[in-house]
């Protein structure tokens, strides 16, 4: 049994204009100590996915179907009381903006002690000792003084280190990190990512990394999901997807990176932009931007505009694309006739 098992997750937002399906058909598992990346552009639903794992979706959003199983317990039907034992304790989160996550009127030490005492029956003194140990693990200079400082006295990189220390406080099994380095500079980003990676390996903690940065995902994670307009469109081993993306959107996303083009040449752009979730195109949500909606013979493929693509297995990856499905089908037929 996997540590975390998400199947057929379906999240909707009940808006005045009608129901919006923010997330559908999300399936994945996470083993202990494994690192999974969720990649997508803004509006793809990657943060909704992260929040729904801990049932943190606020109204008008709700989990309409599917299940999230952590060590066999179903999180999405669990009581608030039960969830509180898991949130922060077994599964902790790191958010994008460290200033928003830290309480500005409490010192770093108070926040860490508060968190420890909420989950464990220990004295303040013991809690402070644990807090100090975690601050040392995230390599903060003079951790002793930091305990009595307030968040505004620290720099962005330092704050994110504190957040990581807090996420590790209760020795969780999984850390969900939602764009943990987006607000930081490149050199600080590299340091924080290296630190996070090191700590996850050292403590055998599972990591779900949500980001728009393909470079970070390829360096940190073992498996990845690519999301587009509320659906997973490709998932599998990170290395395979980066080296040989199957879905036209993943291909476009990778090829659009400046590092993939010859300097000075035109970049390979994807035309158009991501559709709004309340007004999704029919069929495959990517078809208005896709260059492969025609068959090899130049005829349009009707399925692309009419049918939502199902997942097909292509090697070790799963891809939701009619074109890929057709190619695999052709190959299978050819092999059969031979």
């Amino acid at each position: 049994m996997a540590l975390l098992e998400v199947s057929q997750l379906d999240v909707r937002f009940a808006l005045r204009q009608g129901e919006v399906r923010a997330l559908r058909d999300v399936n994945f598992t996470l083993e202990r100590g494994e690192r999974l990346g969720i990649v997508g552009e803004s509006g793809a639903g990657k943060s909704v996915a992260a929040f729904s794992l801990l049932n943190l979706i606020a109204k008008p959003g709700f989990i309409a179907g599917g299940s999230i199983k952590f060590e066999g317990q179903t999180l999405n039907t669990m009581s608030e009381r039960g969830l509180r034992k898991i949130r922060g304790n077994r599964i902790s989160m790191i958010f994008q903006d460290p200033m928003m996550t830290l309480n500005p009127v409490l010192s770093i030490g108070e926040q860490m002690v508060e968190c420890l005492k909420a989950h464990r029956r220990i004295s303040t003194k013991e809690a402070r000792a644990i807090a100090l140990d975690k601050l040392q693990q995230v390599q903060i200079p003079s951790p002793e003084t930091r305990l009595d400082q307030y968040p505004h006295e620290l720099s962005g990189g330092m704050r994110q280190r504190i957040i990581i220390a807090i996420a590790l406080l209760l020795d969780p099994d999984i850390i969900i990190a939602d764009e943990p380095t987006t607000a930081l500079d490149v050199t600080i980003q590299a340091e924080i990512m290296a630190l996070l990676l090191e700590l996850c390996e050292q403590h055998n903690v599972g990591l779900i990394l949500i980001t728009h940065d393909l470079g970070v995902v390829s360096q940190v994670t073992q498996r990845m999901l690519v999301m587009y307009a509320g659906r997973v469109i490709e998932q599998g081993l990170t290395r395979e997807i980066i080296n040989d993306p199957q879905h036209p959107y993943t291909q476009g996303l990778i090829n659009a990176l400046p590092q993939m083009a010859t300097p000075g040449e035109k970049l390979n752009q994807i035309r158009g932009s991501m559709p709004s979730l309340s007004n999704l195109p029919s069929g495959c949500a990517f078809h208005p931007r896709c260059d492969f909606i025609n068959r090899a013979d130049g005829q349009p493929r009707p399925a692309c505009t009419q049918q939502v693509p199902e997942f097909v297995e292509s090697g070790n990856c799963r891809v939701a694309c009619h074109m890929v499905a057709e190619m695999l089908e052709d190959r299978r037929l050819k092999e059969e006739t031979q």
Partner: protein
Amino acid sequence: MSAQVETRHAAPTQNEESSESLLQIRGLKKRFSLSGDFLEQLRFKGGKLVRHQEHVHAINGVNLDIKRGEALCVVGESGCGKSTVARTVMGLLTPTEGEIRYDGQRIDNLSSRQLLPYRKRMQMIFQNPYASLNPRMTIQQTLEEPLRLHHPDWNREKILDKVQDVMGSVGIDPDWGKRFGHEFSGGQRQRIAIARALAVDPEFIVADEPISALDVSIQAQVLNLLMEAQQARNLTYLFITHDLAVVEHFGTRVAVMYLGTVCEVATTATLFAKPRHPYTQALLSAIPRLKDDRPQHIRLTGEVPTPVNLPSGCVFHGRCPYANARCHQEIPTLQTQDDGTRVACHAVEEGRL
């Protein structure tokens, strides 16, 4: 005629450079006061009333030349002063010290009336297209405004023609004219902002992080648009960014800034092939690349110091693995290397690196 050529050849490289450069920045310094007005500056110290002033030293002596037709990229991390350079060049901020020359003419001390003809020749694109478009103006009005200001003699037809023309050149649907900024996505808004900058046919564009607020697939679209515009109109760019991957693709030359000073200036190819300054090396190694598994990035210790109390000597010495006693005391200046790269580093100068 021949005598003129002679003197040109005899002249030091500085003049040679300036003859072809469109923009020259010389000894630029900019300080921002943190202490408020006069009364707020008064403090009691040892029984006496003293005036206490604090400054953010945003730029500390920057020298740069931008040649006609090139894209000079200024890179650095937040707080290094790159945006301040852009704004000072545009005349949106007045420099504390130093000179800015545009096409040979000093522009930093001009009144706004005198600056008007230069404003037509140099335009700016801002980072956040959600904030840089007036929410109460339609796209048509947004694009007409600079034309009306800079061409008061043009009649209505001519202005409308020009707006149509510029909309076409950046790929904006003419139907968008009646709509407002909030109806568009980030990428579309940035397209409109670019159209507004191009409307008055400038020759020089300052782009301050024009693609940082956009999604990856949209970044490529906007970057392509900027490159097309450069080719079609022979534009010169001052391109401010923190993203080195973009620089490698877009820039002709790169200036790396750290804490208000330029630490290395080189052609893009040279900088990426052979970074000299320890900070540039660290910065390059920190780019998350797609196709290496275990990157060997140079880990810098500590963080960027505050620009309020600048470190003595080289501003980078606190984080530099090669710093010695000299670096703590003496401020390095940009030294030209064999291949034309200019580096401000004692270690490079002494051959320690």
